């Protein structure tokens, strides 16, 4: 028996090592309560993997806001804010473990993600720990219902942005019959098209036909042939992510089809102008965050500070969303006078007129999807032009 134990020694040793090292891991991340220690926020983002182009700017924006607040003297009478970036590798499992880790390390609130999938792996853990979570970029309008009362959104819901462009197409462009193209590999784009159809039919419009494609497709000739056959179509709605935004415009215009192309914030990218070129980038309209082509002081200040900090323009609206997420939380902590979860949740829920970079934010709807203005942008001759602001009805 003794000999046997001896023989099992390496295994026991390895296990003891694992145990020791895990306890070190834990000790390193012990929560700190001291008053002079910084207030930690968990920045949950996919910094590597397929979502990094959307999420990395989000964290940059969040860190920038924390830095600006600290330079201005911090919150709660001089305490600093620290946004700890947790890389979840475009992996739901990492999103779950890293959220637990963040909670363990004593973050007072979580923020992050530009996509529903990862929010749903992380936010419920914050909910059950009684810590608020603010998503900077995920737009599904049912998210607050799925997660619970600790959950808040910075962006508008997909329903709002689709309704905005549907109303614009109906009222301003006078469109009555549309063709719809949808990227069916993403829940985001599926939701866009779903809500657009819903509103457009409600207004009395007709959907001639709906065709699907997938992220990464480069040839839309079959779609265009069908579009050409639909002679009475007055516009085409493209439920797209930025990747296909430029290509779809280019190919439709190259085929000589001149009807307006309409979309939502997936089109909010320079690609819409640069890929087709100024001669072809005409009659494109999309709804997006009020941040583009906007000269409010918040926006100008944000862009200036971002360039100063990172030596480049903000990559996309997600950077501004991350910036606003930290701003919202800091504002709520200041009003609550504490970082305790319940009080913080209450203060966040009472947010009424927060002037964010991406627009004014208020949580007055029962759905807790923020009431935010939405900008309608038109593209003519490769130039983006702000046309209108749409407000959700209450």
């Amino acid at each position, binding site marked *: 028996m003794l000999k*046997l134990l001896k023989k*099992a020694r390496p295994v026991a040793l390895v296990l003891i090592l694992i145990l020791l090292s*895990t306890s070190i891991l834990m000790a390193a991340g012990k929560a700190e309560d001291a008053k002079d220690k910084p207030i930690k926020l968990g920045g949950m983002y996919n910094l590597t993997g397929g979502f990094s182009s959307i999420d990395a700017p989000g964290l940059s924006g969040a860190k920038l806001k924390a830095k600006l607040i600290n330079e201005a003297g911090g919150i709660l009478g001089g305490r600093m804010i620290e946004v700890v970036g947790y890389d979840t590798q475009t992996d739901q499992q990492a999103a*779950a*473990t890293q959220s637990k*880790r963040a909670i363990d390390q004593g973050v007072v609130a979580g923020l992050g993600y530009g996509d529903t999938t990862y929010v749903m792996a992380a936010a*419920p853990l914050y909910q059950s720990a009684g810590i608020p979570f603010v998503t900077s970029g995920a737009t599904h309008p049912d998210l607050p219902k*799925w997660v619970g009362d600790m959950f808040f959104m910075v962006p508008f819901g997909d329903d709002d942005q689709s309704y905005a462009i549907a109303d614009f197409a109906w009222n301003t462009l006078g469109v009555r019959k549309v063709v719809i193209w949808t990227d069916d590999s993403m829940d985001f784009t599926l939701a866009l098209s779903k809500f657009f159809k819903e509103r457009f039919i409600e207004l009395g419009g007709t959907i001639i036909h709906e065709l699907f494609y997938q992220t990464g497709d480069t040839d839309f000739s079959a779609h265009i042939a069908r579009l050409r056959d639909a002679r009475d179509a007055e516009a085409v709605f493209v439920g797209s992510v930025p990747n296909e935004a430029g290509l779809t415009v280019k190919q439709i215009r190259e085929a000589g089809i001149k009807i307006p192309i309409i979309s939502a914030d997936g089109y909010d990218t320079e690609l819409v102008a640069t890929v087709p070129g100024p001669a072809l980038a005409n009659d494109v309209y999309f709804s997006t965050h009020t941040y583009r082509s906007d000269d409010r002081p918040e926006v100008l200040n944000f862009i200036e500070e971002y360039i100063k900090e990172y030596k480049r323009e903000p990559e996309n609206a997600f950077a501004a969303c991350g910036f606003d997420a930290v701003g919202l939380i800091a504002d709520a902590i200041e009003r609550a006078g504490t970082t305790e979860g319940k009080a913080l949740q209450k203060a966040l829920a009472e947010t009424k007129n927060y002037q964010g970079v991406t627009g004014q934010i208020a949580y007055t709807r029962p759905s807790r999807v923020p009431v935010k203005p939405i900008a309608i942008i038109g593209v003519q001759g490769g130039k983006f032009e702000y046309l209108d602001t749409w407000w959700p009805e209450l």
Partner: protein
Amino acid sequence: MRLKELNLRSKIPPMAVLGLIGLIFVVIVDKFLSAYITSVISFIFLYMILAVSLNITNGFTGLFSLGHPAFMGVGGYIASLLILPVFRKEFFLPELPQWLATQQWSFFPAIVMGGLIAAIVALIIGYPVLRLKDHYLGVATIGLIFIVKVILKNNEQYTRGALGLNGLEFKTSIWWIYFWLVITVYVAWKLKFSSYGRTMLGMKENEMACSCLGSNVTALKIMAFVIGAFFAGVSGGLWAHLTTVITPDSFSPSLAFNLVVMLVIGGTGSISGSLIAAGGISLLIEYLRPLEEALGMYGLGQILISVVLLFVLIFRTRGLLGSSELKFLQKEV
């Protein structure tokens, strides 16, 4: 003296000692360590289950399957659909057919059912696909991952499409994972040191010679594939109720590559090797996180793993242990 010793040894197999040490470890983790550490250990155990079960397919028989994520997806969705409470189904999946909408299974049978369905899928797929060899099989099984993904995305009535099933109940305690880890290792061990396992290992060396000796090579291949798929299906169910969410993208080809890396580093065919590699790699990645965050160099862990893999491939092609086991664990024959 010597006799007595031998006698004792045959009564208490080293594997049981190992299992007991593991049990004490789980008690300590469960009672004294934080939720984060517990979830890290849980995922390490899960990776161990996956690595060992993939070893049954790839390591023992020398097949090259990358299909584990596909079977995890099948098992995960089946288990989730069976476990999801009836009232939540009405809310989430209103178009579910009656016979499924009224099902509300408890955890264990649902997980087993997930594994069984995954095994059946493997059986159906395996018959035609296992005629392919080497990287052709690898390509075909990657195809399987995408087929499963597309099916899951397009049958919204059952799966909610790309949104996936979220808000699942947290059910996979570290105890459940440890239980399944023990079962997986036990099955793999018994298989490896049975006549079936021996033939499988022989097949890896020389398939022609094996079939000339009268072994039914095809049946053995299918058997290894199906057993591997069963445990992958089980892990899928465990995974879903550990992260509390499952989507068609939860199990991607990159997961398959990670598992293959574990097999290569641990030694294809070695159960203890894949246990060590799965634990070591997962721990390493977790350890490097604070460093990544301090340096602002995200992705460092993944780069390091790739470098380790390159070195193993160049200098120690057989991996840590080749296809043998740790000496003290082996039965004396």
